[in-house]
Every structure is written in C-alpha cells, then in structure tokens.
C-alpha cells in the first residue's frame, strides 16, 4: 500500500503536508478526506486543504509547531480508512453548445466525434469531486471520459461567464464566478456553486458525485 512511501513535511511555520505518491486513485483520496474530517476538529488545527493525493493542515503555531505535529500526522495516516464519505449525488443541469458552449465544435473536432456525441458522453459519465480550490466552490472533478480530453486554449479568455462548463486537458469543471480562463467551454449552468450566505457556502463538497444533465436553453437560461 502507499503508506510506506507517503511524504510528511512542514510547509512554512504553520502548516504540514501529507503527500501520497501517484497514481491518483479514489481509494487514496478517500483516506485524504477521512484525515481532513478527522483533523478539522483537532485542538491545534485551524484549517485543512485537501489537494490531489495530498492534504495540507494549517496549525496554530502558538499551540503546536509543525515538527512536533508530524509524528501524530504520520500515525493518523496509518489509521486512515478508505471508507467513502457520506457524499451527495448532485445533478447539474447544463445547456450545451451554442452561445453557452462556444468551444463545443472544437472539442468535437479534437475528439473526432459529433457535438451530440460529445454531449452524450460528457453527460453520461459519473464525476467525483476530488477537492475544491482555485475559486470558492470550484471543484476538481475526476471521471472525464478520456476521449473528451482537449488541450487548454492557446490564448485564455479574459472573462469566462459564471456557470460555464469547461474541459481543460483531462479535467472538466464549472466556473463558479466570472474569471479569466483557458478551458474549452462546452456549456453553461445556472446553478449557484458558491453562496457566501448559505450553509454550507458551496454546492459541492469533497467526495460528492456529480452528473451533468443536458437541458434546453429555454428551461435553464433566462
């Protein structure tokens, strides 16, 4: 198992990191989530950031220094289980193509598929939220069918509309807020991925399962 070769190290004076070597596997990520949940109630922990195969743990350095926490982190990683979290399945309605997804023809061309076939395969797959980052509520999803992988745009757009569904390399995701971005835009959703006044503030949580559901423009976009 990966336990033996995981790296444990300090990041600056107030954080520690557990990093498991590649490949990226759901079972490893389940251990990361377990550890994140377990540590978020630890007396000296002020935050946790799950990444891809890794977890960054923020400490209050006045209470506990990273070097003094590393042995405990290592011991906890040994105990970490691969139990799947109590995850939700979230269905996200998407208007594919047209103005909502201007790069759909390019993705189809790259995949040597028809645009309808791209939609069918993108909406036919099960996705897993590995972690959130980049923007509040932005989910790094695993599960994009390999044939849909498309290189990022050579020239990133200066402004991508909120809710845009894109493909960048072998990843797919939804932009929660207007941002510059280099992914190929294949559709758009009106679901709100981040609402600072809601509890929890993000629609998606690490461990959630996601399905994209194609809808007609009139039923979704105003």
């Amino acid at each position, binding site marked *: 198992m990966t336990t033996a070769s995981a790296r444990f190290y300090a990041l*600056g004076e107030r954080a520690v*990191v557990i990093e498991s070597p590649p490949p990226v596997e759901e079972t490893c990520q389940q251990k990361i989530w377990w550890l994140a949940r377990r540590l978020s109630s630890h007396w000296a922990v*002020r*935050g946790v950031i799950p990444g*891809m195969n890794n977890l960054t743990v923020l400490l209050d350095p006045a209470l506990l220094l990273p070097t003094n926490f590393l042995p405990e982190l290592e011991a906890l990683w040994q105990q970490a289980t691969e139990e799947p979290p109590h995850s939700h399945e979230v269905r996200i309605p998407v208007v594919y193509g047209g103005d909502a997804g201007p790069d759909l023809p390019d993705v189809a061309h790259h995949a040597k598929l028809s645009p309808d076939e791209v939609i069918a395969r993108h909406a036919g797959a099960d996705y897993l939220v590995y972690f*959130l980052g980049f923007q*509040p509520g932005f989910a790094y999803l695993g599960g994009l069918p390999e044939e849909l992988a498309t290189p990022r745009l050579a020239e990133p757009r200066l402004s991508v509309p909120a809710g845009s569904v894109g493909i960048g390399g072998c990843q797919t995701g939804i932009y929660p807020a207007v941002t510059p971005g280099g992914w190929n835009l294949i559709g758009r959703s009106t679901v709100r991925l981040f609402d600072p006044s809601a509890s929890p503030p993000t629609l998606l949580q690490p461990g959630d399962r996601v399905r994209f559901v194609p809808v007609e423009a009139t039923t979704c976009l105003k």
Partner: protein
Amino acid sequence: MLEVIQGGALCTVQDLGRQGSRHLGIGHAGALDPLALAIANRLVGNPVGYAGLEITLGPVELCFARAGWLALAGADFGATLDGVAVWPGWRTPVRAGQHLHLGSARIGTHAYLAVDGGIETDMVLGSRSTDLHAHFGGLEGRSLQSGDRLPLGHPHPLLHRQGVKLPDWSPLVRALPGPEHAEFTDAARQRFWGEAWQVTPQSDRMGYRLHGEPLHRDAERELPSHGVLPGVVQVPPSGLPIVLLADAPTTGGYPRIAVVIEADLWKVAQTRIGARLAFQLCDAAEATAARVEQTGYLRYLDWSLYGG
C-alpha cells in the same frame, strides 16, 4: 458612520482574514500588512482583529459622521484631517463632519485606517474582509466608491493623542526552504537566496511577481495540485518567483521554493513596485523567535498605550 467621498482606485475593508473554509476553495483575504492593521487598531483601543480600511491607491477622502478617534499605520500617504497633517503611528481625535484625505503612498504601499469601534460591515464566513475575486465580504465584495457608507462600532473613551514607534521596513525578508527547494539547480538556489528580486507592476493582492534571472529545476516533474498559503513562494514555468499573499487561491500546482516567515510577510507587501527585495534563509527556530518577538512588540505597544 464613515462616508466615502472619494474611494480612490483601490481601498477595501479588511480585518485579519478568513480561516477554516479553505477546504471549500475560500481564500484568506485580510490585510496584506496585518501588523500595521493591528497597530492602528490598538492605537484606537480596538482588539487587533477589528476591521479597518486598507488603502492602496488614492486619492481617498472620507467624512466622519460621528466624533471619535482614528489611527493610521503602514504606508505614509501624506494624510490630512481638514487640511492638518495626520501622522502614521498616532491616534488623532476626530469631530463629526471632519474630512480625512489620503493622496498616494510616499513610503510603502498600503496604509491602514482604524477607527475606534471598528468598521462593522457584515461578518461573512467568519470575517469582514473583502474578497475581491469572489466578490463577497467587506462592502459588497468590492473596492470602495464615492457614496458608500460604512457602519462603525461603538466609540471608546480615549484621553489624549498618543503615538508609537512603527516597525522598520527593510528589503530583507526571511524565508524557510519550501518542499521543492531541493529540486532546483544549485545555481538557481544560489540566485534565489543571493540576489535581489525586483517587484513587478503585475503584483497585486494575490501575489507579488518578481523579476530577476529565471530559476530552473533539475526535475521537471508535474506536481499534483496542493494547498498553498500566503507566504509561499511559487516558481511557475517562467522561472520567475511569485510570493503569494492574502488573496492567493487555496490551491496551486507550481513548485514551492520557499515560504516567507509570517513575521516578515508585511515587508513584502510594503515593497514598492520597481523596488528590490532579498530573501534570507532561516530555520524553523528563527521563524518562531521572530513570531515571538513580533508578539512581544505588540505587547510592549499595549503597555506603552494602556499601561500594565
């Protein structure tokens, strides 16, 4: 109430930032120079973490709807209250109807204004700080503009004007080696620690982008996305380092050559565009000692203002 007559190009409500929501992609935000905000707050009798204004690009003009006390710390913007100079590091009484004017930074880059009682915009996800990228916190998640009105907390009775000695800025910034430090070539590591790096105009609240001779790695492995924090120094493929600051995203994928110690991060933020800064290698014990020293400075400041 504090009325904004002129908001300048960048002036935001900030406190000491958000913690505990980073696993949802929610960043830290908060003052780029938390030490200056803490000093300004203590001068007017507030706890260190009350919200104040971070003034980056003026001109900013504010009108006080109630009497109270104000204090400025951090960069020197040549501030005036109804035409009379207000010095950073002092608390000054203010009468209802008086106008505070801040032009542009003469020394440093970011000024902090604290008012007794603090600025009481809504608390969002545990902080009043403005997140300019996700558009929430502070006042509608944006920079202030003319016509904005900021609610203030209850005033404190304070007796007289008083000043404190502000910490000295220097371009020497202590840092710990980052997790990928050893992956850089010997020459790159020597350059990183040995040369002065120029702050470029592409620098902002997310991070300061530095210019110098590019740094290369021995290993060109791709790193999986990982958590990052303010203070982390990333080196993207251009080889030019970026010091991440308060508005940095929660995750990144570039190698981390170093992490600036918390006690010195304000010095990075107060370095002017075009000026140079240099990284000084230190160890965990020195970082702890520097943090304890900074806490001690704030305690001394408390003692000098309010006695034992």
